[in-house]
């Protein structure tokens, strides 16, 4: 077993276990916080896959931005004292069974498909400059569109959340 594998399993566990926790824990705050750890795991997997910039962006945006917003919303929308969380166990049975089925199918496909894997063990190069270059050349239009999207989301959120 190589180090790469060790790291992979480490991060995979770090990703999946909190994700399971997040999907099944009745307390929404705990779910959100375990998601936070899971996202760290995903960032680690990104780094393992030589995507250093995306890994940092993952931490910055998901952990530093989205999750904090989520926590914010949790705290603003719940009574923090008698924090009551509904029992959702019943609702979980069907989705879980279906999820198992889906996972089985996915697993089967992932393992039986012959991927034309072409991973060359080349020296991993920093990606930031190349991503920047590609964003401003090949992907310029989607890039600009996404800025437009962010702007409209920004305005939309302000309009929605503003008290009348």
């Amino acid at each position, binding site marked *: *077993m*190589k*180090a*790469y594998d*060790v*790291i992979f399993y480490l991060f995979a566990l770090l990703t999946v276990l909190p994700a399971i926790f997040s999907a099944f824990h009745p307390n929404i*705050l705990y779910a959100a*916080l375990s998601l*936070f750890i899971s996202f760290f795991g995903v960032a680690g997997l990104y*780094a*393992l896959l*030589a995507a*250093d*910039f995306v*890994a*940092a*962006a993952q*931490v*910055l945006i998901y*952990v*530093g*931005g989205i*999750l*904090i917003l989520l*926590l*914010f919303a949790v*705290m*603003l929308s719940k009574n*923090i*004292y008698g924090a009551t969380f509904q029992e959702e166990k019943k609702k979980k049975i069907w989705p879980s069974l279906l999820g198992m089925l889906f996972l089985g199918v996915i697993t089967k496909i992932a393992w039986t498909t012959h991927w034309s894997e072409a991973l060359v063990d080349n*020296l*991993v190069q*920093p990606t*930031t400059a190349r991503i920047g270059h590609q964003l401003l050349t090949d992907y310029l239009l989607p890039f600009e569109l996404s800025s437009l999207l962010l702007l409209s989301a920004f305005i939309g959120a302000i309009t929605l959340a503003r008290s009348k």
Partner: protein
Amino acid sequence: MPLPELLKELFSTWPLFQHMPLWFLSLGCILGLLFLFVFPFAGVAVYVERKIAGDIQARIGPNVVGPYGTLQWIADAIKLLFKEDIIPKEADKKLFILAPAVIFMSGSAAFAVIPFAEHLVLTNLNIGVFYLIAITSIVTMGIIVAGWASNNKWSLLGGLRSAAQIISFEIPVALCLMTACLVAGSLNLSEIIDAQATFRWGILHNPFMLIAAFIYYIGALAEVNRTPFDIPEAESELVSGYNTEYSGMRFAIFFLVEYAECFVISAIATTLFLGGWHFPFLDLSTASLALKMPLQIIFFMTKCIILILIMMWIRWTLPRYRVDQLMKLCWEVLVPFSFACFLGTAAWMVIFGGKGIPELIAGLLGFGS
């Protein structure tokens, strides 16, 4: 596979660790710096801060323990360590314990990329600046959790205030950092320092960079909740904010991290705007390592300490902002100005071919690099 080989391979395969020259040496040095200098520094800083406060307010300050009260901080540390660790009954225990850990983790993780001297950096990340922005934003998480877990309305309000404040001020701060990266042409902190060799400091590069440096400093003050932006722990409004319910060692961690963070933001400012370990017209590139490293550490630390002293000066001079004023300052002043700085610097880079004012003057006078 034996452990050393596993580790070796680990560091050679994991891309983030590939850019780590002299890793183990650096690790040792920096851990040394961390434990021998930065953490005690928090204690020393408390003493210094109290003395400065005393000076500013025309009183004496600590003067009982030790000569001139110099041992006061040790007494404080001992008191904190031996105090009873209280967890409130209604608190969410797991999260209550987790929160200081998260804060401590993110507070110390920031040190991983700070270049104290040439080669004296834990991980010479090629996206160092980005990493810093990302890792410091995690502190917010800890603060929110701390506020929530305490099950106390002052704590929760403090946590929420702090989260709002940090998220908001992250924007001008990140923009100013990006401005500096634009000038240096890299996200790697060591390369950024190299680009500011001797007299070409980032802050002098162009007028926009000067403004950006100030915006960064103000924004960073807010990000670490220092006065005049310490509304999350405003005593008059929220008792002590998110750490109201904490005591003993856990409180000490909050305390420690606050000072460690002060040091981190000063170090970042030094790295990005004040030329890092460079001293004007003192070219150390040919000097021997034994001479170079101590000198560089001294230069770097001096700059940081000056910035920290300014922080203390500000803290004891200015009154606290109100919440709405704070947000207004961020969104209506700092964000537009930092955008302007970013665009202005970009325009400057295009117009002057990347040369800054020092270089231009040097070119005019006929000397320089």
